[in-house]
């Protein structure tokens, strides 16, 4: 009963809140802006805020770190109660929800789309208007064990799906374990699967927003993705929430797809496989498209200090700051120019991400995406475990997309 009650309390509070406020604010007056940020960014944002205040002595930045697991709810509640911060970090897949709520201010003209990676910028465009600025990016690439691949005689990196599957088969033969570490039942399974769709020329929706999840391209992508499980090249029964790196370090998986954070994790925890792994861009079918994620910075409509707020966002998004930010938390810059200077330019392995970012996509900007993603995950899991055929799974995805996207 407690949970029911809590659910209802939240609803009532949300519904009952009112009030409002907007306005410009004068950048020359002493002002204070509040910034919310999540996880590692929230903990380290003070560095950036100090630097900003040094350059703009009349603006004080108050940083509120919040944890990822409560962030979404807290932000929605703040919008409902008109108690938003001035600036916040937002996950790229949340943009449409907040855009739909009308909570976000439009990006001013002095911040230019062309400075950023296209896939990352597009996560900010809601109904034709940009309502946020990419802060940092991540994209998925292929991690592989060079020593195991060599022993197995697998060609690395794989140029296309066929070579990827051959490599997985050879590695499995060599180690007796798995060729590739994939997860058919994780919250992020769709992020692992969608690149296969995009690489095959398919997508979630067409140009006019109609779902295209039962296209031959999607069915083929499902056939390829599920083949890894059906042929025993990937584990069907990994426990949910378990990190893939343990198996990679132990040699159970010869390959896996992941984002830039695994470079740091493998450097820290994988000392015994130092120098025995490498990363490579996605295999190419029609294209070598990967998934792009990360976070954006937004300014809320309810902010009373919009000028100062945008000034902060502009500061955070410019190349020099992004280079400093990479040094602070190792987040990959969303601003293309930041890659040419400082620490980043010298890191050869990170250039793989730089290359991949030129060909990376995100989910469509629809408010019901998270719901659709859950359904897509369910269909992928069923197909991977052989409960449905790829064609049936694709038909199911299409049906769910039609229901959810018209809302």
């Amino acid at each position: 009963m407690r949970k029911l009650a809590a659910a209802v309390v939240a609803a009532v509070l949300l519904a009952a809140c009112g009030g409002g406020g907007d306005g410009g604010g004068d950048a020359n007056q002493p002002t204070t802006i509040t910034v919310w940020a999540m996880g590692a960014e929230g903990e380290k944002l003070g560095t950036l805020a100090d630097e900003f205040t040094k350059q703009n002595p009349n603006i004080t930045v108050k940083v509120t770190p919040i944890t990822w697991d409560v962030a979404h709810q807290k932000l929605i509640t703040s919008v409902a109660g008109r108690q938003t911060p001035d600036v916040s970090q937002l996950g790229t897949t949340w943009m449409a929800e907040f855009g739909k709520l009308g909570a976000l201010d439009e990006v001013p003209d002095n911040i230019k789309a062309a400075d950023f990676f296209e896939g990352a910028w597009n996560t900010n465009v809601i109904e034709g208007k940009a309502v946020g600025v990419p802060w940092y990016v991540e994209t998925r690439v292929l991690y592989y064990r060079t020593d195991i691949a060599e022993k197995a005689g697998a060609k690395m990196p794989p140029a296309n799906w066929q070579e990827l599957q051959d490599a997985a088969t050879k590695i499995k033969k060599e180690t007796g374990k798995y060729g590739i570490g994939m997860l058919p039942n994780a919250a992020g399974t769709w992020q692992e699967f969608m690149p296969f769709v995009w690489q095959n020329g398919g997508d979630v929706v067409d140009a006019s927003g109609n779902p295209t999840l039962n296209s031959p391209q999607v069915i083929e992508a499902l056939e390829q993705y599920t083949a890894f499980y059906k042929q025993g090249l990937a584990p069907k029964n990994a426990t949910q929430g378990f990190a893939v790196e343990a198996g990679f370090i132990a040699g159970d998986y010869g390959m896996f797809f992941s984002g830039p954070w695994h470079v740091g994790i493998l450097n820290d925890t994988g000392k015994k496989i130092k120098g025995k792994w490498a990363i490579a861009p996605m295999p190419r079918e029609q294209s070598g498209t990967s998934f792009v994620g990360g976070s954006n910075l937004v300014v809320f409509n309810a902010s009373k200090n919009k000028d100062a707020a945008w000034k902060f966002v502009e500061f955070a998004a410019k190349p020099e700051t992004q280079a400093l930010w990479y040094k602070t938390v190792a987040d990959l810059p969303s601003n293309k120019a930041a890659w040419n200077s400082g620490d980043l330019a010298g890191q050869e392995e990170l250039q793989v991400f730089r290359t991949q970012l030129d060909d990376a996509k995100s989910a469509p900007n629809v408010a019901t995406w998270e719901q659709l993603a859950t359904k897509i995950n369910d269909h992928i899991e069923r197909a991977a475990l052989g409960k449905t055929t790829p064609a049936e799974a694709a038909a199911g995805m299409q049906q769910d997309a039609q229901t959810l996207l018209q809302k």
Partner: protein
Amino acid sequence: MARQTAGELPLAAPPQETRDAARRAPRWRSLREALIGYGFAAPYLILFTVFLAVPIVASLVISFTDFSLGAIDDPADAKFVGLQNYQDLVSDQKFKSAAANTAYFVLAGVPLTMAAGLAAAVGLNSQVVRFRALFRVGYYTPVVMSIVAIAVVWRYILDVDVGLLNNVLDAVGLPRVAWLSTPALAMPSIILIAVWRNLGFAMVIFLAGLQGIPQETYEAARMDGAGRWQEFRHVTLPLLRPTLAFVAVVSSAGYLQLFEEPFVMTGGGPLDRTISVAMYMYEQGFGFFNLGYAGAIAYVLFVAILVLTVLQLRLFRSAT
């Protein structure tokens, strides 16, 4: 036979004398007493009203609307849709899975918890057990530990690659088992963990019940030549009936709200085999902010708990 407690749950009702005394007292005095009474009760009543009564009514109202993300910004955005949410539930495959899983969990989990709790209580109540305090603490500790911490630890223990249990199986030459990610095994694993966690609570209540059984009844049974099993079957069990009813009702209501274990250990998978009604409600309500739909799920669960409780009370009462 001492029957004074049989058939009645220890539910709060003012003793008859108090009510009679109040009726006979002068008016002003009763008013003053009533005000004092309400004064003492006020902190609870206010909290109850604000955090329980109002939300419970509000969620019923919301369950007849399409209250979702847009309505959070502007409540006028929510439209009344009548019984639409309830109708949608009937054809919602995931809700059906959640309902079936929850029923499975209750039907298997409650009897197992009661049997294990009773066995532990009878064991600890007999005179032969050494280290009685140690066992009592051991059985009861899981009850007071954080359920999320327990679930996280069990997730590690049951993991197929690095889990303690599988390492033991491996060491004795048995195959590794994917306890939490094999569809047919995931729910049984969760049930066993829930039984282990909750048997301590049942045990404590049963111990109290056992200690309320007069020794003479056992002596009388022994004189008639009853063995241990016959004692248990014909003396202990019948005299424990009210305690059994209490534990059954409380456990069932708690188990119907299954949430944390699958939320932490399996995320509802594999193949939706461990998603529970409460979890699905959470996903709809706070994952997707479909609060109208979540409200409908909440009320279905509420009615299920109510019906099951009434049925159980009837059953235990009619049997006495």
